[in-house]
């Protein structure tokens, strides 16, 4: 049982290993890398933040739209709903009508909140 998840762990470590190998290969052969072509360049121009060729104005870590927060909050609510839905779905046939009615009540309560958010235009992109 648990050794199945050992495979998952090995896939995680192997994936990181493959990526690092690719990075090292890139570093070896890329210009100004270990073996790559050498050339001179103006570092402050090449490595500046890209902004259509003009100089960057201000910081790039600016304030952003409140809509993102609202979507994130709604997402958390619905994701937790699905976490409750999955165990119910697995034993749906065993629980029968009683379990189904309980789940309908649960979904209905969530949908009331969803309808409220919809009516309050939390889902409206501005």
């Amino acid at each position, binding site marked *: 049982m648990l050794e199945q998840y050992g495979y998952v762990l090995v896939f995680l470590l192997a994936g990181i290993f493959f990526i690092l190998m690719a990075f090292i290969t890139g570093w070896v052969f890329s210009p100004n890398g270990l073996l790559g072509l050498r050339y001179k360049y103006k570092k402050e121009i090449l490595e500046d933040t890209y902004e259509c060729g003009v100089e960057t104005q201000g910081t790039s870590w600016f304030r952003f739209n409140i809509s993102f927060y609202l979507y994130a909050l709604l997402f958390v609510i619905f994701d937790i709903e699905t976490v409750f839905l999955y165990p119910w779905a697995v034993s749906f046939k065993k629980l029968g009508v009683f379990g189904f009615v309980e789940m309908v009540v649960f*979904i209905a309560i969530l949908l009331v909140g969803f309808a409220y958010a919809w009516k309050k235009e939390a889902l409206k992109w501005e």
Partner: protein
Amino acid sequence: MLTGENIVQLVSGLLHWAYAQAGISSLAGVIDPIISAVVMFGFIAVFVMFLVWMERKVSAHMQSRIGPNRVGPLGLLQTVADAIKLTIKEDVKPVNRDKVPYFIAPIVAFVATFMGMVVIPFDKGVVVQDLNVGILYIIAITGFTVIAILTAGWSSNNKYALLGGFRSAAQIISYEVSLVLSVVPIIMITGTLSLSGIVEYQKQAGYWFILPQIVAFLIFITSATAEANRAPFDIPEAESELIGGFHTEYSGVKFAMFFLGEYIAVVVSSAVAVTLFLGGWLPLPYLDFLHIPGFVWFLAKLLLVIYLIMAFRWTFPRLRVDQLMDFGWKVLIPISIINILATAVVWFCLYGKGAQ
């Protein structure tokens, strides 16, 4: 007879014979997963290269062009040449970047989708590990891509990258909900989360779930396309508005990793769609006398679904941000909830309310 199961038995028999010859039988539990990871990486690398070539040919066909035809036969080696080109390109790193997240983001983007390959059943018994929570595992693991994209957008210290990252995060989490909800009816009918178990159920039932659950299939394909940031949902990297979106400041190998991760995400979600809705490795009805191995059927169906996703890209115009969010929240999520309830009601009407 050549089936996937026989091949696995043959390979594992050969491996264990080799272990015994080398006298490392005690280490077999460590070496097996490493070999399966290497094999899966090799498969995915070659398959993604083929897919990039296929996408170019498909798009060329749809635009009455020829497409790549110079490097190798039919241009098949074009992607190899591109991969080499990306590897030897200079890795331009902006000075203002946030160093550690900038480095980690492409790693997460690749590894998160690569780990999803663990539970994909290619044939009966041909699966790295058939976890009993297979679907939940895939959804959880592929959900990490949003972290990679948000990290990349934030750490680049670039306005386009940041906006692309935000948009992408909003889009992915919105469509994640409908993706997860569209799978629930299948689990209700089969009563299992294991991907192989779902295919076995379809074999016993004698039909594929695309017939009773066509609505869920359409929702799943739409959400999977949006999850992989592919057109018509490619707002995060809408090149006419945001240059390159979250990977504006990435170049060379690091950009290649985002690219690879995106294609693996397409492969994984298409493989899940094939397993859930199109019968996985099962042959087409009335064609099982041909004795074609199961993994050939699986790959054929996989390529069909991937072709569908590629065709979306060249047949639909790109959505606007507000249209995209409206479509996700106000159309797909209500439909998928109604689909769950309707499936339950129809089930009770057909089979009675009794426990079984």
